[in-house]
Every structure is written in C-alpha cells, then in structure tokens.
C-alpha cells in the first residue's frame, strides 16, 4: 500500500524514539478541490471505510470525504464497540460474517492497531423457546461456516460465574449461545486507521465542512454545496446514518427511516471481571468490559424521534435495572458517563446500501443498532456499489425499494416498525 506518511512499525518506533523527530499527522488536511470523481458525505467509520476500499479495491483515488465536524465525532465513537456475526436471516448471515472476516485482518491491512479482541459473545436464553431459537440460529451459522456453540446452564455457569443463578433470579438462565470469534474493537482507532489509510491513497478528508445541499442537473446529482463552497462530483454517496433523512430531504427524497436516540453507558473502572461480551435474553441489554476497566453497556432506544444526542433519564434507569437483574454484584458501581447517539431506525430493522432514484447519488444508512460491526463490510460493499454503479451481491437485498415490493428483511420476524409497538 502507498502511504504518504510514515509506515508504523517497531523499527519506526525506535527510529522516532532515538531521533526525537515528531510523528507526521496520520492524515492530511487539504483544501477542497473544485471537483472529485466521488464525494462521500460523512466522515464516520462507514464513510472513511468506503473511501478506503474505493481506493484500495477499485483504484478510485480522486475521492473526498466531507465531514461536518471532526473525524470520529459521530456514531463511530458513540457505539459499544461490539463485533459479531451471529445472524439468522440469509443475507445477514453472509454479510456480517464477511464483515467479521475483514475485522480479523484489519489491523494488518490498515497498518493501524484497531485492537480487535475476540473475547467471545454469549447470548443468554431464559426459556426453552429462546434456547431452541438459539440452536436454530447456531445451526444456520454453522451451515454457513461460522462458529457457534450452544451452551447449557452448567456451561454458562462455569464461563460466567458472576451472573444471577439464584432461585430469586428474575429471569432464570437456561443456557446460551457462544460465538468465540465475536468481541470488541477500539472504535476510535477504526476511524483513524481508515482515515490514515485512505489519505495515504490520496483521498481528501475535509473536516469541519458541512454539506448544505446538492448540485443537480435534472435527475442527476452533480455535486454538493458546502460551507466551503460548491464541489463537483461524478458520483455522490450519503453515509450519515442518524441524519440520513436530513441529507435525503436536501435531494428531495423521503426515506423509510426515523431518527432515534440510543444511549450507552460506562461505569467507573474495576479490575478484570467480565471477560466476554454478554447479551441478556430477557431484554435488549449487552455488556462488556473495556481495557480501562469500565463496564460498557447499552439497551433500547429512548422511544421517540430525536436528534438531540442527549438521553432521557428513565432509560438510564431501565438499562441499569437490566444490568442488576443479570449481575447483582455490580449494583453499587457508579456510572462514569452516559451518552447518546442518533441512529436511523427502519421498518424491518435492516439497513440500506444501494443506488437511489437520482442518478449519481448512492445511499448507505438505516443502520438501526448494528452499524459499527458492519463498518468494514459496508465500506467494501458500498465502494463496490459506487464503483460499478450496481449493488454488491452481498447487499442486493438492502435496497430502498424493498418495502414497495413487500420484500422487507426482518431479522427478528416481528413485523414492520416493531420498535414503535
């Protein structure tokens, strides 16, 4: 790979330590050019990954990533850093496994340590039906060559001895499913690593540059209006999950999306305690421990449209109740921080990676709870979609038109807009 900056290595570390020379910035901060082959709106994980794979896989390097604030300020830095590929539905299973495989080689590929920690994820079952469902999902995963192990209650007790197995447990634990290759990634490093690698290929990353509209020629999008002036583009890609509807409205499009607020939480740091990622089966709740020692967890969305990026207190309480129902021993831990991110919610819980009704305009969004783990696969598949002007085979089921065709992609089999019910 061609880097304009310094390649990171042990030798480079020694060289810099001995010489005292300053490390160059990880990515360039250029002035906008008047035109690009591809403009990607949104400098989050997805936008930066798309830029990187456009350059690395398709040789498209005359690319700009336009970011309203600074790299890593949005959802790529607000998630709970989990990666996994335990999905049931055909299409999802293969897509998320492709993503996990890319995660497994990402530090080497980017020459940037994203600190992938494959500590394993256990999804708990609290009734026989759930355990049967996990067995079915695990079998589907294994048929697709993905690792999955069904655990009985005793195995869960040995692996996660600190959960509540007492007769008083509100939701008795009957077993679970383990994916050993699942785990966590340092999310900031993902943004920085992709930014650095894309910049190394000549991609311009334009921070503090807000898109305010689109340049149009009939039904064709020919560029963007920004706070730093108009920039022409052969192809334009929207990569701003959370604010997709706002950008789409600038292009005159309405989307099957509502924006909702999801909170995440971290406790004060404690000694190593939770060695895995654990997902509660009785409610939407997931927990892991960061390298700094804080327990990182999250739950449901707040429950009404919002762009505020500030959570409501009642959700703090319900998520904390989940934590204590599962692990009574952490009841006296103090919360260090909690924060909110805005996510696109879609009717079927699945995202969009596709062309749009406008020529030259491409769309990636609608990520619901699952955007972070998909980052590398989104980058690769969206770059393919833009470069070939046709959807990548792994994302053909993720079109904007699927609801018009009564062809939703409903992983949980619960029907449309379930989060509203």
């Amino acid at each position, binding site marked *: 790979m061609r880097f304009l900056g310094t390649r990171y290595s042990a030798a480079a570390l020694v060289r810099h330590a001995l010489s005292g020379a300053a490390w160059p910035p990880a990515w360039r901060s250029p002035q906008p050019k008047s035109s690009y082959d591809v403009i990607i709106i949104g400098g989050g994980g997805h936008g930066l990954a798309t830029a990187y794979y456009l350059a690395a896989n398709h040789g498209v390097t005359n690319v700009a990533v336009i970011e309203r604030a600074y790299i890593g300020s949005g959802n790529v830095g607000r998630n709970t850093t989990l990666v996994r590929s335990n999905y049931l539905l055909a299409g999802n299973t293969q897509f998320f496994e492709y993503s996990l495989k890319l995660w497994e080689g990402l530090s080497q590929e980017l020459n940037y340590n994203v600190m992938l920690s494959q500590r394993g994820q256990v999804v708990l079952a609290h009734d026989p039906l759930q355990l049967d469902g996990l067995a079915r999902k695990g079998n589907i995963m294994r048929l697709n060559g993905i690792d999955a192990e069904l655990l009985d209650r005793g195995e869960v007790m040995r692996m996660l001895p600190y959960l509540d197995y007492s007769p008083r447990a509100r939701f008795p634990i009957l077993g679970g499913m383990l994916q050993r290759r699942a785990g966590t990634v340092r999310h900031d490093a993902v943004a920085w690593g992709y930014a650095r690698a894309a910049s190394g290929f000549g991609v311009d990353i334009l921070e503090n540059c807000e898109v305010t509209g689109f340049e149009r020629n009939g039904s064709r999008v020919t560029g963007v209006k920004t706070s730093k002036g108009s920039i022409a583009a052969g192809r334009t890609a929207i990569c701003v999950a959370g604010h997709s509807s706002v950008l789409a409205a600038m292009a005159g499009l309405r989307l099957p999306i509502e924006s909702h607020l999801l909170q995440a939480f971290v406790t004060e740091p404690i000694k190593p305690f939770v060695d895995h990622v654990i997902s509660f089966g009785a409610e939407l709740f997931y927990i892991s421990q960061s390298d700094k020692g804080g327990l990182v967890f999250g739950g449901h969305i707040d429950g009404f449209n919002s762009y505020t990026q*500030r959570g409501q207190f009642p959700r703090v309480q319900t998520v904390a109740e989940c934590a204590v129902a599962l692990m009574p021993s952490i009841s006296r831990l103090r919360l260090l921080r909690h924060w909110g991110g805005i996510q696109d919610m879609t009717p079927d819980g699945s995202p969009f990676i596709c062309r749009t009704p406008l020529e030259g305009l491409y769309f990636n969004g609608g990520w619901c709870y699952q955007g972070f783990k998909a980052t590398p696969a989104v980058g690769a598949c969206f770059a393919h979609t833009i470069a070939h002007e046709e959807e990548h085979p792994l994302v053909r089921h993720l079109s904007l038109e699927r609801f018009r065709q009564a062809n939703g992609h409903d992983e949980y089999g619960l029907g449309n807009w379930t989060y509203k019910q």
Partner: protein
Amino acid sequence: MLKIACPGCGVRNYTEFRYAGDANKVRPAHQVRDLGEWYDYVFLFDNPKGPHREYWQHVLGCRQWLVVERDTATNTVQGTRFARDGGGE
C-alpha cells in the same frame, strides 16, 4: 426529562405518554387501491430535524390522544392540544 403539558392533566413526564408518530400523515381513504399511496403512508417519513407535529397518547393519565409540537433537535415543546380538536392529519 421531556415534559408534556396535557391539556387535561397538566404538565407530566413523558413516561406517562406513548409516542405515536408523525401527525402530518394523511391516511388514504379506505377504498384507495393505489398501493403507492399506502406505501407512502406506512413507510415514508419526513423525519425532520426541527419542528415536528406528532401524536402522543396520555396512556397513564386521561388516555386522550394529543397533538404535540416538539422540536426534535432540542426537545422543546411548543404546543399541545387534544387530537380530537383537530390539528392532526
């Protein structure tokens, strides 16, 4: 905490209410057979960042349906009225 002033019960925490979505949507007439209109009604949303007119039901209070004007960027509530008085679809 988001507070909503119910015209019947006064100012209450939002947790007493159930959010019920965009109040600007117009439900197609029952006999409409154009699936495009139904698609639009069920699936497409303006989802604005800013003023939004929306339904809430006061499920843990008077159980009345309300039309609330709220700014989705700040959660500021500009106005609340009974849906039965109009102002919805």
